[in-house]
């Protein structure tokens, strides 16, 4: 009782102080001496560098952080679902992701109510919008993923290729602006088994996401405003046909129907792909001569548009969330803001991830130029353009379930077991049942 009162008083004082000094943009991280904050964080080399900042937060606030669990996002998702099912939410802060967040119901609090607007304004507006579920800001984004094109400059700048391309298609050879051009160039460059035009994710949410990207770029969408599945529209069939045409022309490795991100990344680094629509996290790997054969000739281009002139912009953000059951929400919110503040975002950006604060983009490009990493400076300049059109998958709890119906159907169409229309119609029928069961579709 007394502690809650004390916290309430502190919070009020902090708010008054903030309100009083409206011009001062500093976030108050608060003091929580003697409190142990329990957190469940995502593990893995690309995520853990940020956690080296935790001792700084501990020194700043006097609290201690206990990392209760550190796993990859599949296992973490399972663990969180089991915690919800058993009702044992004993932790305060959890790693989250915009694609997974809608499944967790009301596990997490609305951070708009705890973080001052002045602080929220520092985040990239589009990114923050995609972090909302049902109008509640359930997570603070830490890094954003949006795909753009990597390509091999040596192939594009070769005089022989340029002459042949000009002769065949009548236009100059340059990184593709549209998905149709992308397909055309992939078929042009392919000379199996030594080199392929490109490769695409062939299973799991990867394939559903890429399908959704092209569908949206063509002007279609997954659901209409009443949650009726509409992905079996002509735009959807055209999207499936894109994959199928590449597969039939053997412009992609035959095993691409089983590829996940790792397989595609390895193939690109081995120099086997001419172009690759992929995530920013690979930039470091592709441009490191120790791990990649194409490091010296890596080019960046913004992702192509579809027949409607728009980009698909499939994106997701890793994030941090605070639980309803947390016994000290102020400490938890302070921790979440700290791990996504300007210094933290700078640390993530320097590693090649796309930050979620607007200021960081400008600062990090300067830093790259000053530190002889011109290629990363170029990459950020290119990637930032695509953030404005970034969109998440449908933010609804049934997304994963619907995805698990769509990717086997698209696979069946690609390998020729069904026509694209048949496959998508079947998937749409099953998805309708799911949405009806969920009570979203009347």
């Amino acid at each position, binding site marked *: 009782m007394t502690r809650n009162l004390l916290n309430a008083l502190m919070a009020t004082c902090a708010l008054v102080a903030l309100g009083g000094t409206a011009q001062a943009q500093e976030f108050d991280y608060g003091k929580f001496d003697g409190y142990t904050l329990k957190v469940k964080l995502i593990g893995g080399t690309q995520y853990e560098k940020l956690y080296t900042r935790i001792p700084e937060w501990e020194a700043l606030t006097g609290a201690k952080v206990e990392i209760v669990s550190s796993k990859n996002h599949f296992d973490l998702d399972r663990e969180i*679902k089991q915690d919800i099912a058993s009702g044992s939410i004993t932790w305060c802060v959890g790693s989250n992701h915009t694609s997974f967040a809608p499944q967790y119901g009301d596990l997490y609090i609305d951070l708009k109510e705890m973080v001052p607007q002045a602080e929220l304004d520092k985040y990239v507006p589009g990114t923050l919008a995609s972090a909302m579920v049902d109008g509640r800001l359930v997570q603070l984004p830490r890094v954003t993923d949006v795909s753009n094109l990597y390509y091999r400059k040596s192939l594009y700048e070769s005089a022989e290729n340029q002459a042949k391309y000009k002769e065949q298609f009548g236009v100059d050879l340059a990184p593709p602006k549209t998905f149709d051009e992308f397909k055309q160039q992939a078929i042009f460059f392919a000379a*199996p088994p030594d080199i392929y035009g490109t490769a695409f994710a062939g299973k799991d949410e990867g394939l559903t996401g890429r399908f959704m990207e092209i569908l949206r770029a063509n002007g279609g969408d997954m659901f209409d405003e009443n949650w009726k599945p509409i992905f079996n529209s002509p735009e959807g069939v055209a999207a499936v046909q894109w994959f199928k045409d590449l597969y039939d022309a053997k412009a992609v490795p035959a095993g691409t129907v089983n590829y996940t991100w790792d397989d595609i990344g390895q193939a690109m680094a081995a120099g086997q792909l001419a172009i690759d629509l992929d995530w920013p996290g690979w930039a470091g790997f592709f441009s490191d001569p120790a791990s990649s054969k194409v490091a010296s000739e890596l080019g960046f281009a913004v992702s192509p548009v579809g027949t409607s002139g728009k980009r698909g912009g499939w994106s997701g953000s890793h994030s941090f969330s605070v639980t309803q059951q947390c016994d000290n929400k102020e400490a938890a919110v302070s921790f979440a803001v700290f791990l996504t503040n300007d210094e933290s975002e700078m640390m993530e950006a320097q590693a090649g991830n796309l930050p979620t604060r607007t200021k960081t983009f400008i600062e990090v490009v300067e830093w790259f130029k000053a530190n002889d990493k011109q290629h990363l400076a170029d990459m950020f300049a290119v990637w930032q353009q695509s953030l404005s059109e970034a969109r998440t998958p449908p933010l609804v709890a049934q997304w994963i379930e619907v995805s698990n119906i769509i990717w086997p159907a698209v696979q069946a169409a690609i390998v020729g077991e069904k026509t694209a229309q048949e496959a998508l119609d079947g998937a749409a029928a099953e998805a309708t049942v799911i949405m009806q069961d969920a009570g979203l579709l009347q």
Partner: protein
Amino acid sequence: MSFWRSPRATPYLLLLPAIIVILGVVLVPLLVSFWTSFTGYNLTKPATLFQFVGLRNYQRLLGNDDFWWAFGRTIVFITITLNLEMVLGLGLALLVNKITWGQRTLRTIMMFPMMFSPILVGFQFKYLFNDAVGLINNALFDLGLISQPIPWLVDGALANFSIIVAEIWMSTSVFAILLLAGLMALPKEPIEAARVDGCNPWQVFRHITLPFLMPFVYIAMTIRSLDVARAYDMVRIMTNGGPAGRTELLWTLMTRVGYQNSQMGMANAMGYVSIILSIVFTFYFYRKLVGARTFMGGAQ
């Protein structure tokens, strides 16, 4: 004197701790999962645990083609894998049995594949069979045997073949160890007598060694059939049931439905239907085991 105070109750009382533990760890989860198969239980909505839907899950299951294809495919997978593992395991055991010097070292080395986690084996073989950068295609190219990459994990028959290869690599040594134990227990006198009578090695094997080994073979088959039926990690990593569901086995389907789609009620219903599979295999092997043991006692 009441029953519980009489000496007749002693065995039951002594067993009581074990019975309580087994009830707690085995029976209660079984009952709960059986109950959930009659509900629309969704992991992320704990309230649905009490939403009774009767036989709806089972009815949907009976009409679900994907489930029955996975069921059939699992039966074929178990049959082929078990038989090949038995033949290869038997061969390995016979060879190792003949070695006199360094047998212990060789036995230990033979067990290495067993020690790998199935997920690691899955990753290892996924990269070996990768059509663009994998070792196998590269080796075949260098030897000049192929000019186009073979899509090991995509073509229907080849993908199932690749998974079977990975499973056999990992578990043949279990068979080999069990059969080696049987070979070591083999009495020498009948074999010597047979040799003296002029039997050739094949006749010795067929009429003396093999019948004696059959109980061990059936024990190994029973244990392994349950393990292979549970094949999940490896298949999930290698193909996740694809492409287009052509390598879908019972457990990849159930895990996707239960954990990714959070439909635990349905997944449990699938589990109970597939128990039939395990029961049939176990029953069959146990009957054969009992039959083989009567022979081993020299009754024939």
